[in-house]
């Protein structure tokens, strides 16, 4: 492999801060694994730098818009630089939560019932009437989130109909379209899937128990405010089902290298798919590094392996 590995982190999405943290951690891990690494933000100089620096491979750790919606990866395809992770077309599908749910649902995976509605629809039809129908159809509680985006930004648990309008406004602050889902009570789990060339496989399931009950932005990025258990304390069959669902979602969406599926195990032990991340967080408080460690792997070596695979494609 000639040339450095270029870690892209930052960007202009709402998740810039998280991305910078992921980038720092992965860069350090890759250096520990013996690779030459550069970290770069995405700006107007990127194309020139790609041409002049000729990185051996890019690790795009941009979260949110542009990073996970396939845009930057299209650019990398355009300039012919290898990169770790899913192709742009797969990213576009996976990043859009309602579309990903549809694809995953067609593969026979259970996902919460929900409706996807742009703000414009509420304006045209009258918000009160639409929200009444949503509550009638889906019941309570509900979970509202922006159709695109991560880190639980703009997401809210709605326990009463009176809370729904502010949850909708909160979601629309982050994007024009919102996903309103039935809330599934249970254990929230994260399941990384890696494919180092021998086919996708799930890493140990991580269960997530935030102190405040909701795994929101604060619970995600404040060390100490959430308890993680890895491997999750689940029945054998349930843990296997979580792994199967995560691999099936990864496969159905056409992802490659690394993904993380967020699932709920309900009180009956049934597994529900919530969403998938094509550039999962790799910060000090993220679940993927925990799972990697529990699998007996080293984060730097794992990403280095993925880099090796990407350059050989």
């Amino acid at each position, binding site marked *: 492999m000639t040339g450095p590995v270029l870690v892209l982190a930052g960007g*202009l*999405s*709402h*998740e*810039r*801060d*998280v991305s*910078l943290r992921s980038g720092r951690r992965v860069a350090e891990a890759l250096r520990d694994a013996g690779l030459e690494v550069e970290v770069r933000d995405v*700006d107007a100089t990127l194309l020139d730098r790609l041409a002049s620096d000729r990185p051996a491979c890019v690790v795009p750790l941009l979260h949110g818009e542009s990073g996970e919606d396939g845009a930057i990866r299209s650019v990398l395809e355009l300039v012919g630089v290898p990169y770790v992770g899913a192709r742009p077309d797969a990213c576009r599908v996976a990043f859009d939560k309602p579309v990903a749910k549809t694809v995953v649902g067609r593969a026979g995976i259970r996902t919460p019932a929900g409706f996807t509605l742009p*703000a414009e629809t*509420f*304006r045209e039809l009258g*918000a*009160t009437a639409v929200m009444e129908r949503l509550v009638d159809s889906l019941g309570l509680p509900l979970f509202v989130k922006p159709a695109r985006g991560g*880190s639980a*930004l*703009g997401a809210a648990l709605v326990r009463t109909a009176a809370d729904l*309008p*502010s949850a*909708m*406004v*909160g979601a629309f*602050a*982050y994007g024009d379209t919102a996903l309103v889902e039935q809330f599934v009570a249970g254990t929230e789990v994260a399941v990384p899937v890696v494919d180092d060339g021998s086919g996708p*496989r*799930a*890493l*140990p*399931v991580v269960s997530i128990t935030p102190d405040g009950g909701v795994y929101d*932005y*604060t619970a*995600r*990025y*404040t*060390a*100490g*405010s*959430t*308890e*993680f*258990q*890895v*491997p*999750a*304390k*689940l*029945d*054998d*069959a*349930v*843990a*296997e089902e*979580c*792994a199967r669902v995560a691999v099936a979602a990864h496969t159905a969406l056409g992802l490659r290298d690394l993904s993380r599926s967020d699932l709920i195990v309900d009180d009956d032990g049934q597994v529900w798919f919530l969403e998938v991340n094509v550039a999962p967080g790799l910060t*000090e*408080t993220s679940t993927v590094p*925990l799972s990697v460690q*529990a*699998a*007996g792997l080293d984060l730097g070596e794992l990403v280095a392996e993925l880099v090796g695979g990407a350059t050989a494609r």
Partner: protein
Amino acid sequence: MADGPDRPAGVTRSSTRLDNYVDRYAARTRGMTASEIRALFAVASRPEVVSLAGGMPNISGLPLDVVGGAIDELVRTNGPTAMQYGSGQGDPVLREQICEVMRLEGIEAHPDDVVVTVGSQQAVDLVTRIFCDPGDVVLCEAPSYVGALGVFRAYECDVVHVEMDGDGLVPSALEQAIASVQASGRRIKFLYTIPNFHNPAGVTLAPERRQEVLRICREADVLIMEDNPYGLLGFDGEPPRAMRADEAERVIYLGSFSKTFAPGFRVGWVLAPHAVREKLVLAQESATLCPPSFSQMAVSSYLRSHDWQGQVKQFREMYRERRDAMVEALDDMMPATARWNVPDGGFYVWLTLPPGLDAKAMLPRAVTARVAYVPGTAFFSDGFGSQSMRLSYCYPSPERIREGVRRLVGVIEEEMELRQTFGALPSGSTPAPPSAERGYESPNSDLS
């Protein structure tokens, strides 16, 4: 129970909070958490974003050759002293110069009563450290400086806000607040006030009110912490007369070179009555041993070798031009139901949104539109301020300010449409409930 998929033999299940120290922190760190607002401000640092959030002084006009020459001379002629520990109270020569600076605001002081600090932010910290026990009451304007609120929270003070209007602190509201606190059996340690070109409200305490505030505090036996970083940055006439100029025993005065010279040196000061000064020096020594000698001597050298008042005049003109650009843009573009003040100096405009809007909830939309501001709730300790925001005009060019306001207006119009769609919401039209977590929600230090 299962081992889960891909679990190697010998790997045991573990439970972690990803913080090995989680049960050891002091209770006062409880509010030190990650927040969405802080995350959004990470985007504000990008050049694509017009940041009307940051309170960074615009020091592009500083004569860097003069500063460089002064520092070069300092190293050549006085290097070993400049790079050595110094007095806990601060460099004596600089303290004399500080007294000359304060004379411009009517203060007659002796250098012995000045303690140099690491920016006036450390002065707020030291004064609070020596006066406040947990539960003591500090009176603050409504709104108040976010950095001071963070200090008061760190010392577990109980902040009570006092109403302001276009002429600054409202004396009758101050009297009521004092009476109310005293009736509750709690002790007021001091009134924290920024009388000139207030951060974030942009208003200035009217001259007649200064005397009234002094009288009220004298009668109620309340000390005053007069924080005055912007006093020399007025756009019209002479600098306002400091409250300390008329009351030496009750007023602890805080000053700073961050806005009149450069914030990177981190040099501020506190002027206090003799007994208080003694304690401040001891507190300073326990905090830092001494303020940085190099920075103090560099500032001293600059003051001695350069027409620093001429430089401040240039700063004033630059900030006036930016103030005019912002106010003109607001006049031209803002919806009629928004309100804002026209500051006579300093860095900030305080804008109140049309009814029903929530500045904090709207911030993600603003960041998407590539404009940033500081939501008003950052400047209250009690959850108020949701309908307001601080707009800073000190740093961007007039053209960028206009562009920023244009973007902001687009965001407000979209948000108004959305709010109209969903009807009145509890958070926009009424204050959010008090939250114990709010004190540290403030954005980065460069936004303070």
